[in-house]
């Protein structure tokens, strides 16, 4: 994987919840401006890894190093199921929470700021739905809302946890386009994904995880080496000592 200069570095990181090790001795790095997919079977520790980099979860051992220039510049898009979708907020109010890094608890959400939130909603295709409550949105619309929030937050590093799970093809296409635009602007994007088609088509770099790091590097090389494969049974991934890092 291209790590020059590294924005996020994991050094022998283990994360343990009670007796269960979600991640074991994982090392690796993510370079500035890269677009990386994190793949692996269910329970592989993909979401834990994102939360680790976001600072939501702390390592039981090892270190996570965040480059000084991106500290406070990390945006995290959770799985939809982690957000309270029945919370009594309008779509515009929910989008405007993306302005939190700018306004915090004290500064006013002025008309100009709310206009920006409204424009972000238009950009993700939610024009005319600003006044609805978030509970009235479909799964795809809700994911668009979370992208609008991320757009307002405007971080340098984006960590996305299964952003295209259970949404329609049109929405996926729209949101992938936004990701690619952000990548072109130099943002670092790390995205947990299950869909190997999407990974091969859009993500230059990949990291394969199954509790341990099974491999990382250029996506096409991982496909060539059958570490990533359409025939791959994610539940029967190879042991980590059989593979090498492909930086």
């Amino acid at each position: 994987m291209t790590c020059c200069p590294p924005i996020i570095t994991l050094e022998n990181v283990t994360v343990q919840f009670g007796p269960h090790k979600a991640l074991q001795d994982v090392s690796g790095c993510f370079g500035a401006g890269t677009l990386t997919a994190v793949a692996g079977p269910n329970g592989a520790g993909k979401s834990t890894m994102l939360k680790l980099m976001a600072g939501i979860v702390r390592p039981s051992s090892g270190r996570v190093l965040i480059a000084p220039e991106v500290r406070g510049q990390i945006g995290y898009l959770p799985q939809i199921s982690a957000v309270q979708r029945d919370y009594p907020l309008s779509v515009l109010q929910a989008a405007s929470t993306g302005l939190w890094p700018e306004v915090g608890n004290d500064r006013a959400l002025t008309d100009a700021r709310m206009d920006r939130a409204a424009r972000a909603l238009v950009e993700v295709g939610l024009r005319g739905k600003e006044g609805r409550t978030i509970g009235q949105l479909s799964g795809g619309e809700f994911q668009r809302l979370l992208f609008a929030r991320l757009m307002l937050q405007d971080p340098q590093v984006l960590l996305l946890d299964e952003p295209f799970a259970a949404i329609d093809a049109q929405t996926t296409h729209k949101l992938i386009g936004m990701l690619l635009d952000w990548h072109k602007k130099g943002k670092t994007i790390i995205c947990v994904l299950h869909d190997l088609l999407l990974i091969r088509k859009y993500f230059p770099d990949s990291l394969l995880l199954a509790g341990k790091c099974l491999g990382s590097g250029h996506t096409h090389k991982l496909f060539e080496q059958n570490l990533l494969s359409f025939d791959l049974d994610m539940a029967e991934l190879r042991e980590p000592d059989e593979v090498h890092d492909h930086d």
Partner: protein
Amino acid sequence: MIDLLITPFADYAFMKRALAAAVILALGGTPLGVFMMLRRMTLVGDALSHAILPGIAAAFLVAGLSLWAMTIGGLVAAVLVAFAAALLVRTTQLKEDAAFTLLYLLSLGIGVTLVSIKSDGVNLLHLLFGNILAIDAPALWLVTGASCLSLFVIAALYRRLVIDGFDPDFLAVAGKGRGGAGWTNQLFFILLMINLVAAFQALGTLMALGLMILPALASRFWARTIDCMLPLAMGIAVFSAYAGLLLSYHLGAPSGPAIVLVAGGLALISALVGRLGSVRAYLMQ
């Protein structure tokens, strides 16, 4: 009609003080109740309200019906139970609700036993169900102080509390450099404890949560957004306080339970005919 609705409060000082205490509790506690409901903490709040009893009972054993001794005793018990629950959740397989259930039942048992050692059933009933008609000036000041503190903290941190309830992980990440989010739960526990202890004199340990939570539940069936939910819940709470005291006066019913009955009745009616997520809305789909 005016005689029926106003005279009890105009004629009797104890009714005036009771109304003042109930309205202040309603205004201060209900916003906290709305946020607790949205954070799915209502059961934890209920458990904590029962858990303060042993502290109050121990203070009662030592110092009798002293307001300040019982306030301090209640706060100490609440803190101990919150810490014990956190310890159980962290070190055993018990989830938060189960840990609190274990501790509150234990607390209730200990509290009732302690009070029974020294006292008759009247004092036990007083501690369990309160006596808002016996509120004196110091108790009124305590209730006022607790409510003002709650309102001030919630107003000062309103945006943070809303985001933290909606998506706590977002705040944990985006809040870095702005204080993070980790302490919001602890803040809630502290505010809840202070309000419960202040309210027990009026409504008792078993009923103290009623005026916080029931109006919040009722408002959920009418208001779409939290901006509307908060004032509506406060209005329902104030009405419940007034109507409950009035009913209690005219029917000779105990005042605390009468207030909670009105608030609970309104919540139930809202669940049946409210415009959002009610039985009526379900049938009209």
